Structure formats: structure tokens, C-alpha cells
């Protein structure tokens, strides 16, 4: 799609998070990559929004831009009345505890050297930490003494005992500071431990067994449960799940999808579910947005979109999926062409180079979102389902 526009956005008061006119561009040695172009979407409280598309369509970039990792090139991301793109430093980090992410590779997204309890508790410890723990004060004093003694040595006394003591004090001070930042020497907070146990239990891991184990002692599915516990511990409103099941076997995938749905109900979560697998996205989503080359093609309830796609790109994606049914044998995938380079996206509708319905208008004008009357919006000049505007001009007789 290839399209833009904001017709599909709902009432701002229903939205937990609202993304408007988002652009993400990356400068590279070969030119500028247009990863996301003029994308608007609202995420309603309590829903699961599925983002689906081929690799390179900008679905992960959109998820990361919401988290300001990195901040988008243009556009706004409004959460709880704040535009996240305008927040900086601690304000941004504090707000972001309410927005969490789960990543694709469950094993590499966990620190292999740390026990599960630390991995899960880290977010809580960072925000529970008082800036003036005894360790922090010791670190500051030692560092200061070190700098003063070294200064005296350099500017006056020459290399002598003062310089050696100064150097030692400096090293000790910096070391203590590092320990402080790493979370050591914090008074153990029983409420932290209780919360960590609660979330481990919620994701189906026995806290007593998991507590001091390290990630390599868990299977891929269990590691993904630990990642989910880590995301839950700061009591977020929104969790962005970036391909959370694509590295897992089908049997484990089913466990994780069921778990995410259970947790969503239990904790009143809102989810953004990013995946390339249309069947997985259909299974968990309340609304699906199909993305192509940095823009949204079509957004609406999954049962509507999958029953009768309105955008030719959605049709193409659905036709490509192998169904586990031998009766479909002999059906050939349509010729589909290749994804154009995001370094030079086509003019007008981004999908026109692969679209069987494309004409001159598609090259000239970017299609805008239009309703199809069944809760779905499509950005296409020649949709496969009549849009409400066209329906209105031809009354049903």
C-alpha cells in the first residue's frame, strides 16, 4: 500500500497509544532507507493489534519507533497525553516502563550470565533504587579523593605516594560506582522479590525452581516465558511483541500464544503483535494492520480481512500460504515479483510495481485510507471490496 491518511483512526479517548504521521528513515552509505513512511495507527485500550507483512516492510521498525528505539525521524507517538518523541532522559525512561517489548530470539535476548531472578527483577530494581545508597556515597567520595590526589601529584608533588594512593582511590571509586549501577549493594526489597515470584508464576514457571538458574538451562519456549515475565514485572500497559513465536516449534508456539492471551485477560494488557505469519496474527489479534514497504495497506478485524481481503497485497499474501490440507494440492502461487528496494520506494502506491490492478493513478497518487463499511479501512485506488464512499454513490437497489 501503500497508503496514508488518518481516516482509520478512532476516537483519541479510546486509544491507549496513538501514532500519527510516523516516518522512520535511516541514512546509510548507499542512500536513505525509507523504512516507515507517513504511518498512522491507534492502539485501543485492551486490544491486540497485529502488524503483519514481509520482512523489510517496516513492522519491527514501527514497533521500535513506538518505544523510541530509536526515536522516529518525524511524527508523534502519543501515550497518556504525552508525545513520547518530545520526552527526553528520565521522563522518557520512566514513561517507558509502561511500554515493554518481547523479542524474537528468546535465548539471545536474555543475559546468559545472570540468574533468572536478576533478569526479571532488573527493571524493578532500577526504578526502586535510591540514588544515595551507601555504596553510591562511598563511590563518590573515593572518586573525588582520587581525583584530588592525582591532581596534586600531577601539578605539584610529582610521582610519589600521593599519586599511587590517588590512582588506587580513583580505581576503587569507579569500581564501586560500577557495582552500584549494576545493582549490587541495594537493600533487598521484599516487595521486589514478591513481584518477581508473582510474574514467574503467571508465565507458568515455578519461581523456586527457576530462581537461580541461568537461561541455558531452559528450553526456547521457557526462555520466551522468562522474557514475558521480565516485560510484565514493571506492570506495563502495553507490550510490543516482535515475532515472539517465530523461533519456536509449532507445539511450543501454541503454548506461548495461549499464554499471551491469558495474560492479556489477567493483567488487562494491550498488545502489539508483530509477525510475518498471517495465521498466527489472525489467531491472537483483535485488529490486523497489513504493512507493505513502510505503509499500511489495510487495517481491520481479522475475520473480515481474511475472509475477503480488500487490498491486492493482502490477497497475494493469503494466496501464498500453504494450507495443511492435501486437497489444495496443485494450486500454484501467483507470480509475485520481488520487494522493491526501500532505498527508492515506488512513487504513489508503494505496491503498484507488483500489483495486478495498478494503473497510472497508482503511480501518481498515494491512496488514502477509506472505510469499507465493515470496520475495515483500506488504502487502495482499486480495492477488491467496494469502499463505503463508492457504495454510497451507488445505492443498493
Amino acid at each position, binding site marked *: 500500500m501503500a497508503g496514508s491518511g488518518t481516516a482509520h483512526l478512532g476516537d483519541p479517548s479510546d486509544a491507549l497509544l496513538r501514532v500519527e504521521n510516523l516516518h522512520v528513515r535511516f541514512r546509510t552509505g548507499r542512500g536513505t532507507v525509507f523504512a516507515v513512511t507517513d504511518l498512522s495507527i491507534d492502539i485501543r485500550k485492551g486490544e491486540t493489534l497485529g502488524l503483519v507483512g*514481509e520482512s523489510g516492510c517496516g513492522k519491527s521498525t514501527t514497533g521500535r519507533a513506538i518505544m523510541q528505539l530509536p526515536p522516529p525521524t518525524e511524527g508523534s507517538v502519543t501515550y497518556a497525553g504525552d508525545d513520547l518523541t518530545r520526552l527526553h532522559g528520565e521522563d522518557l525512561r520512566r514513561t517507558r516502563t509502561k511500554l515493554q517489548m518481547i523479542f524474537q530470539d528468546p535465548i539471545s535476548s536474555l543475559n546468559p550470565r545472570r540468574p533468572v531472578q536478576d533478569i526479571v527483577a532488573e527493571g524493578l530494581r532500577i526504578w526502586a533504587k535510591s540514588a544515595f545508597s551507601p555504596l553510591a556515597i562511598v563511590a563518590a567520595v573515593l572518586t573525588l579523593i582520587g581525583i584530588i590526589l592525582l591532581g596534586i601529584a600531577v601539578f605539584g608533588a610529582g610521582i610519589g605516594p600521593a599519586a599511587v594512593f590517588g590512582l588506587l582511590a580513583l580505581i576503587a571509586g569507579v569500581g564501586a560506582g560500577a557495582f552500584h549501577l549494576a545493582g549490587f549493594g541495594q537493600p533487598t526489597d521484599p516487595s521486589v522479590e514478591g513481584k518477581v515470584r508473582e510474574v514467574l508464576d503467571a508465565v507458568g514457571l515455578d519461581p523456586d525452581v527457576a530462581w537461580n538458574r541461568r537461561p541455558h538451562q531452559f528450553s526456547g519456549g521457557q526462555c520466551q516465558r522468562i522474557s514475558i515475565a521480565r516485560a510484565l514485572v514493571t506492570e506495563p500497559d502495553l507490550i510490543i511483541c516482535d515475532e515472539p513465536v517465530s523461533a519456536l516449534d509449532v507445539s511450543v508456539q501454541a503454548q506461548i500464544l495461549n499464554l499471551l492471551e491469558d495474560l492479556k485477560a489477567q493483567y488487562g494488557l494491550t498488545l502489539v503483535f508483530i509477525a510475518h505469519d498471517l495465521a498466527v496474527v489472525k489467531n491472537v489479534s483483535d485488529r490486523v494492520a497489513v504493512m507493505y514497504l513502510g505503509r499500511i495497506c489495510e487495517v481491520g478485524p481479522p475475520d473480515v480481512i481474511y475472509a475477503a481481503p480488500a487490498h491486492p497485497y493482502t490477497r497475494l499474501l493469503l494466496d501464498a500460504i500453504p494450507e*495443511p490440507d492435501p486437497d489444495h494440492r496443485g494450486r500454484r502461487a501467483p507470480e509475485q515479483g520481488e520487494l522493491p528496494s526501500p532505498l527508492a520506494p515506488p512513487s504513489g502506491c508503494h505496491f503498484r510495481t507488483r500489483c495486478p490492478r495498478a494503473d497510472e493513478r497508482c503511480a501518481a497518487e498515494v491512496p488514502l485510507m477509506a472505510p469499507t463499511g465493515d470496520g475495515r479501512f483500506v488504502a487502495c485506488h482499486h480495492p477488491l471490496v467496494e469502499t463505503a464512499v463508492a457504495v454510497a454513490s451507488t445505492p443498493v437497489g
Partner: protein
Amino acid sequence: MSTAIDARPAEGLPVDGEPLLVVDDLSTTFATPRGPVRAVEHVDLSLPRGRTLGIVGESGSGKSVLSRSIMGLMPSYASRTGSVRFEGVEMLGADHSTLRKVWGAEMSMIFQDPMTALNPVKKIGNQITESIKEHLDYSSAQRRDTAIALLRSVGIPEPERRLNQYPHELSGGMRQRVVIAIALACGPALLFADEPTTALDVTVQAQILDLIADQQEEREMAVILVTHDLGVVATRADEIAVMYGGRIVEQAPTATLFREMRHPYTEALLRSIPRLDLPSHTRLEAISGRPPDLLHPPAGCRFAARCPYAQDRCRTEEPPLVAEPGGRADHLYRCWYPVGIAREQTTLDTIAEEAHVREPGDEQAVDLELVDDDAVEGNVD
């Protein structure tokens, strides 16, 4: 291209009345510091020319080890017993020079990850002509023409220019086409495709699978398609073998397997797949627990610990892989209390009928066993 195929004798005809590939009681054991891991046990298969066998299973089921065991691509700490006859010649225990003549020329493999399967510092043209140079007596101009024809046949535009490119200059789908072109270069009689599309987008996956099917038809090549995705094999394979814990647990012609599945593991796999034809928020039936530890395999049926129907007999006595008396001779399964006989038949339709939308409090299958330290998973699949 036809010259490459002609290098093979007796095209399309079985040698001595025997199918192209006959695997008899093949077992593969890895010697590990913690003891022997029996990754594949007692596998019997036969595959005629032009047919496709799908091997399906989860990671750790031994499906990849099986295909490598048949081809003979084994590390030094692996040992194989049984027999693998290819074109009537015994491959187990064959010396290295015999295998070198067969690899690439008669049997070849498409690997899963197109980035690591290609040499990043060699031009694509040289990677394709490498096996032609090894096996066929072609001049360098003939080799170049063959490489161009191969690239064109796998749907790569401007093949002349691509010959001088490096793998990083191509997209993932294009790289996988190059891997296929290399596998097809000498016109093999048997092609192993080990998860050939797992790393690719669905749109590209469909094109690659169509491409393999076209080439198969053109060359009367036999294909062994290894995958974890029942959706991929349902429409591509003539016959399917479902593997679990190093053994074949069910084997049948594709349509029979889907219509009359007998093994609870096959059923469980089919139930756990999210389906496009079912409504959003349909509860998925996960398989609880995890595959057996092949260092210490369980005494009875390997699936018993995760099987919803397991009874005492299943935990003590392993069922043999047999056809049902009076049933189809080509439908084998390994179960004491099979689906459709000991209880009602499950099909895609019955699963759809039973499907229900998730509700809070639904039973959640949870797997709480920890992995042993330094699990040997890496060796097994």
C-alpha cells in the same frame, strides 16, 4: 541443461527393479561425552524416482539427522548401522571416493539457511560451476552456459550479470535460488531439501516450493522434503513420514495421513497449528512437555509422556511400526491405541468443529522441566 541430465544412466527407470533409494533399518548414534545419543533408530524407507517424501517433526526429532545419514554427511563421532542403497549401490561403508562421485552429481542437498550455505568470498558463478567441474567433463564455456541456464531456470533475472556477483549482493530469496541452482547443477536423481523455506517470507516460500516442483517434474527427480510445517508438505509430498524422538511414528501417503491419521503425535501436531480458516482467538491445543531425552530414551512409546491417551502398556512396551491388519498396507504407525480405531477419527474438519474461542481459565499446558546442563541438542538436530 539436458546434457547434464544425460550424464546419468537409465533415466526414469529403476535399477534392477529396485526403487531409487532403499533405506533399511538405518540407525545413527552420536558418541558424546555424556554417552551415546541415538538420534535416528530403525528407519525403513523407499523412494522411487520422481516422487516426494516429506519428513515432518519438531526440532530434536531426528529429521535432519536422518536426511544427512542417508546422504552420508556425518561428523566423525557419528556411527550408522543398517543399509542405504541408492541406485542399487550400498552407500553405508562406501569409501570416500565413491561418495564424492555421488555427492552433488547424484544426490544433492538444499540447506536451510541460504546465507551460510553460500561461500561469501566466492562469486556465484564459481560456486555453481564447482560441482560441474568436479563431476562432468565440460569446457569452461560449457560450464558457464550451464550456470547461466541454471540461474535462468530458477527464476533469477539477468543471469549473466549475477555470475560475477557475491552472495551479499542478493536478497534472501535470490540466495536460496542460487543454493537450489547449485544443488541442481549436475542433474541429481535425488534432492534433499532440508527446511528449504524456513528462513524466507511466505511469498518467497511459495515461489521456491513451486520451483522445486517444476524442476522435479522436468528431471524426474526424487525429493526428500524435511520440514516442521505440515502446511508445506500437505500439498507438496506424495508420502509423509512423521518423526518423533528419532523414530518414524507414522508413515502414509499424504491424503491418507490427513484423512485417517492414527498416531496421537500427528494429531497433536495438526491441532497445534494456527489455521487461517478458523476464527480469530481460537484456542490452540499445545503439546505439553517436551521431546524425550535421547541419551536416556524412555522404555515404552517415546511419545507416552506427552500423549493424552497414554495407558500403562504405552509406558512399558514400545509399539512396533506396522500397518493395521486388513487396512492399507502403505499406512504404518507406531501406537497401541490409535486415533480412529481406539477412539474417534480426527481430521481437519473435526478439529474445526471442536475449535472454540479462548476463555480465561482454559486449561494451559505448561512445561516445567528444566533442560539438563549442556544439553546435547546441538548434535541431535
